């Protein structure tokens, strides 16, 4: 399930919604399809247990019933974990204001470098963290430092390192968990990296960038998760 693209995931959910006969609003225009909106897409290969989707219903239905009916139609690896109704003043919004994502990054097949804590400290105390983005034709250089809200080593074992990272995401810019792995020098041909997103948030006030301080400002809408 984690290997499908966001577009394929969207279609999978649309079909499950149809099978569950959930009375969802259809979009207008040439190609009517269920009215759904999503939080930021997960990269292919990543898992998440707090992903977001909003459904616009054509008639009121008890959320718990929707959750039950929909979960029966979801393929293995996809599950609604929490559902709630949006208050009226929130109904026009999509998830445009989501701008923080929290990840667990498990790097397996690699012994933890002895200076790992030092590398993290160095990253977080840098003024600037410059990377190239754009693939083969590096389009632009970006300073990632303002988008790295926190990184810490959650666990190290003989052949595995688990990091926790809190990164900005969304239209005002962000850092990608893959970039954190690279910046810490933890890439290796033999290493297997798994990304798990444990939460997405909207920042209502400006957060301080002190490393190690996690501030949770607001938790958003209806949820679905995947393993």
């Amino acid at each position, binding site marked *: 399930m984690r*290997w499908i693209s966001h577009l*394929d995931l969207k279609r*999978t959910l649309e079909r499950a919604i*149809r099978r569950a006969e959930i009375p969802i609003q259809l979009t207008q225009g040439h190609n009517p399809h269920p009215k759904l909106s999503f939080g930021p897409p997960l990269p292919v*290969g990543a898992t998440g247990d707090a992903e977001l989707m909003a459904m616009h219903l054509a008639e009121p239905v008890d959320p718990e019933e929707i959750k039950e009916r929909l979960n029966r139609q979801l*393929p293995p690896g996809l599950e609604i974990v929490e559902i709630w109704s949006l208050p009226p003043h929130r109904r026009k919004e999509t998830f445009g204001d989501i701008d923080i994502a929290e990840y667990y990054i498990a790097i397996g097949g690699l012994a933890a470098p002895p200076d790992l804590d030092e590398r993290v400290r160095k990253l977080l105390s840098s003024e600037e963290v410059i990377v190239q983005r754009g693939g083969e034709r590096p389009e632009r250089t970006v300073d990632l430092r303002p988008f790295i809200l926190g990184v810490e080593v959650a666990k190290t074992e003989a052949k595995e390192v688990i990091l926790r990272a809190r990164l900005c995401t969304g239209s005002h810019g962000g850092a990608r968990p893959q970039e954190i792995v690279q910046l810490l020098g933890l890439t290796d041909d033999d290493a297997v990296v798994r990304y798990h997103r444990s939460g997405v948030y909207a920042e209502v006030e400006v957060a301080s960038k002190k490393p190690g301080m996690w501030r949770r400002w607001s938790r958003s809408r209806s949820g679905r998760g995947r393993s």
Partner: protein
Amino acid sequence: MKDSEFDVLLSRVQKPARYTDGEWNALHKDRALARARVALVYPDVYEVGMSHLGLHILYHILNSHPDYLAERAYAPWSDMEEQMRLHGIPLASLESRTPLRDFDLIGITLPYELTYTNILNALDLANVPVRAIDRTDDDPLVIGGGPGAVNPEPIAQFFDGVFIGEAEDAIIEIAEAATARGRTQALEALAAISGMYVPSLYKPTYGEGPRGTLTPLDGAPARIERRIVDNLDAAPFPTRQIVPFVESVHSRITLEIMRGCARGCRFCQAGAVYRPRRQRKLETLLRQAEQAVAATGHDEISLLAFTSVDHSEIENLTSELVDRFGCRGIGVALPSLRADAFSVSLANTIQRVRKTGLTFAPEAGTERLRRVIRKQLKEDDLFAAADAAFASGWTRIKLYFMIGLPTETDEDVKAIGDLIHRLLRFGRGALGSNKGRLQIAVSVANFVPKPYTPFQWTAQDAREELKRKHRILQDALRSRAIKLSWSDPDASALEAAICRGDRRIGRVIETAWQYGAKFDSWSEQFSFDRWEKAFRENELAIDDYANANLEYDDPLVWDHISCGVGRAALRAEAERAFDGESD
């Protein structure tokens, strides 16, 4: 192979969901309870294979039977293949990652000629000897079937058996044959199945090109009769269709409303070998639609037939489906329309849910040539259809043509260009202020002389001729309002050589594959040079097969297969064609 190791592979390839399990409606039966385990293989990439209805029908029939089990496999794309060969990972089924070698039977679809190198590649990736003669008791049986089976000779040496015709009834018999102990008994059991061709029981003698004879040994039948399903309405049909994760075209429910075609176009092999025309009843189709919608959640129902508008209840069917499902955003697609106003009115009904494309197939540019190929399309009807289309709000239509048709002259080719321009002028007039949005898509294929058609004796145009004719059209159809696409004459020549081919062509296919040929139907993967080299090394010429003009009484390498239409009837049709008669 551990899940974590598999995950590493998946992280290194494009579209990893091509190779993972977990699709809605995929079936996982207990291996231990099955007396025969069948791997159904489509020799192309997952997204292409998933849109082939035949495999889904057989999957459903086998898995519905308590004694048998069926799982699927598709050709891995080159990036996955590279990883597999690097790490010694054999081709395995999607559902349980069981290596194909561990199945009792591997059933491979023969969709069409340019997929044949993928078949060899799949067998090789499965660690099954590519040539049937090299297989032992430890190897699974390898059976083929599908549209390409009507001339099985090019791939005959790679298969233990090739099934000719419609397999809904036979697939159970084939699975039962795979429960036999040992190869010899299994092959005997296969040979006893009506419609099954066992190539090892036939010895070829060859003339030049497609001329030759296959002589039966040991009491094998002189001719293998294709098998068809008499009662299509009662035939099993999967409504719980597997819902793919990865799609190349818009995924949807497919309902087979009709099989066979009564139009009798002379270039069409499918129309010839799937006779007689049979249809499913309205009530059956509506019931299947309800079940499929509930079981899949797709937003479109496609009505599959060679000419869907020929179904006797097509109007009622279309409007019923739109009435029942339209309000839920579920549309109907009619992939094959006739060029007349009736079809457009049907398309209008469909439009109420979702906009659909309009595609017509005039095939030839002049009335004269259409009479020769027996394409019953009058220009007046085409313009009436266009008129109805533009009046209903369509601004785009797609037209299919073929060049290299028998008796074709440059005038016929230029007439295509002329017709398109007249349509454009007409369209601009009809659309008025909207005329800027007018778009005509023109798709031009190359004629291939197919076995079992009246044109089976006719040579294909030389490749250079086809290229020259395409250039005529490219010059004639330069316009922003025209989108022209055409088939590669080199690929079409190869298609012709293979569809008229024999086991010598089979050796060419093997050589080409050894040189790296695969996914030949993908234009960016196709290398004609590689094929020319393969022909040379086998001391054969592509022209001897594709461009051979055959005599009516030449023995042909597909004569031992009977597809319901006899040589005398085909010859009579051919003579009528060349006399310019359409009837």
